């Protein structure tokens, strides 16, 4: 653990050094104003940029490694985001719902029609009425 901490501190120091190198030619006045960059400026700026990027990557890597070890030891608990609630299904448009309703009711209508046909053919054998319903309707 301590070695990773030392690595993190060294990387952060190097990051600061890299940032300083990038601004040093302008801060120290070795780069003339309103002139093209001189050789020392170019060298220091790009060296500082590379150092800053590498140091940042190193610091992040060491910090992630420390965090990993703390989690493995149970000293740090990882917060898990709550799972998002499922979004309610949007209501289907009216046209679609009536078409679905018709398709759902079609077998029922067919069954009713068959039942009525059977009743019409066997109307004489009805026990609770003298005439079939169809006959009653026709006699009205």
């Amino acid at each position: 653990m301590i070695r990773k901490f030392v690595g993190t501190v060294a990387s952060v120091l190097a990051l600061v050094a890299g940032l300083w190198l990038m601004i040093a030619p302008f801060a120290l006045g070795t780069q003339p104003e309103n002139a093209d960059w001189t050789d020392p400026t170019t060298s220091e700026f790009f060296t500082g940029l590379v150092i800053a990027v590498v140091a940042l990557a190193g610091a992040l890597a060491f910090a992630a490694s420390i965090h990993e070890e703390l989690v493995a030891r149970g000293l740090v608990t990882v917060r898990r985001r709550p799972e998002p609630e499922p979004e309610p299904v949007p209501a289907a448009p009216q046209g679609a719902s009536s078409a679905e309703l018709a398709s759902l009711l079609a077998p029922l209508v067919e069954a009713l029609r068959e039942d009525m046909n059977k009743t019409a053919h066997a109307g004489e054998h009805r026990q609770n009425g003298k005439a079939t319903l169809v006959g009653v309707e026709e006699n009205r």
Partner: protein
Amino acid sequence: MKAKLGVSALVLLFLAGLWLVAAPFAVGYQPRGAAYVDATLNDLWLGGSLAAVSFVALVVYAADALRELARRAKHAES
């Protein structure tokens, strides 16, 4: 794996420190035989410090890793 990435960064930083020390003479903005200019002084101090800090961090890392190995070996024997 992440620690290895960090160690690689430390090695690169050590090399960058060495480069900074050599840069004034390699690039040629430090005249030979003349007093050190400001840019040279800046590079020498910063490069030396960077190389030293990176080197110490690498040594500490290696020493702690070796100590942990020795502790594990001792624990395995007993």
